[in-house]
């Protein structure tokens, strides 16, 4: 049985992060190494923000992206993923989705969210980046599409977009989820 890990785009390409948000030059090597050690297949999901907001976009909260047009964009990106994940499950593979906690779109357990804050770039990021429990917009849409299959899928968020990001902690969390999926 194969474990297939669908990674947030930026874990293999930090160039897709919001302006000032890249934590490495390109590939986040620890996650690749860990998945390789466990024999997992790696697949890269699209970044829902990149082609919509460009590479010079600033950080934002989920509410800013929560528009009809952006939801349609996310649905267009999520549909082929959902179809492939269903096919993976049907052939007996295990599926793990790895999102980015703190992201307004790719968050899993934590997402950037605020009723009144609007991603003002005139404030340093570390002074004001509101995060709440809940999934990001794209993650939510993908899991809704997967509906009855969602309980068979492990979903985990790596906290790269959290201000208290701790690489060792996040790697331990990811390692545990991938091991559970074996």
């Amino acid at each position, binding site marked *: 049985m194969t474990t297939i890990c669908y990674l947030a785009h930026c874990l293999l390409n930090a*160039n897709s992060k919001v302006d000032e948000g890249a934590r490495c*030059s390109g590939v986040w090597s620890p996650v690749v190494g860990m998945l390789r050690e466990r024999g997992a297949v790696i697949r890269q999901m699209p970044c829902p923000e990149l082609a919509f907001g460009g590479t010079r976009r600033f950080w934002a909260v989920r509410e800013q992206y929560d528009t009809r047009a952006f939801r349609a964009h996310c649905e267009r990106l999520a549909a082929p993923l959902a179809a492939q994940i269903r096919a993976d499950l049907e052939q007996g593979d295990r599926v793990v989705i790895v999102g980015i906690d703190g992201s307004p779109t790719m968050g899993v357990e934590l997402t950037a969210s605020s009723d009144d804050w609007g991603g003002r770039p005139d404030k*340093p990021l570390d002074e004001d980046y509101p995060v709440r429990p809940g999934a990001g917009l794209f993650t939510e849409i993908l899991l809704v599409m997967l509906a009855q299959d969602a309980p068979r899928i492990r979903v985990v968020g790596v906290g790269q977009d959290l201000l208290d990001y701790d690489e060792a902690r996040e790697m331990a969390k990811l390692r545990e989820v991938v091991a559970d999926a074996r």
Partner: protein
Amino acid sequence: MRGDGRSRRILVVPDSVVNPADGRTDHLSAFADEGWGVVALGPPGLVPVARDAWMEAIVDQVVTFIDDGYLVVLAEGDDPESERFSRALREAGRDVSGHIDLPE
């Protein structure tokens, strides 16, 4: 501020780079060490309903990088997805900055 360590250099790679067969060269680790970000083309055997939309999403993202002045290079494999990608990118009116061959 967290700073930003992005390389502004992207390699579009076939699935065989991200998931090399046993005993094959690990190009991904080398590319990572060199600072490249990676856009992975779709794996072989995608379900038909996903195949075109998967490529379309990749092309949209690569066009964004090209239009914003990032260096985008295609690491060409002998898989059909590399050729499909090149054709789709040309249809979008763009091209990569260069190509590299993947040694065995």
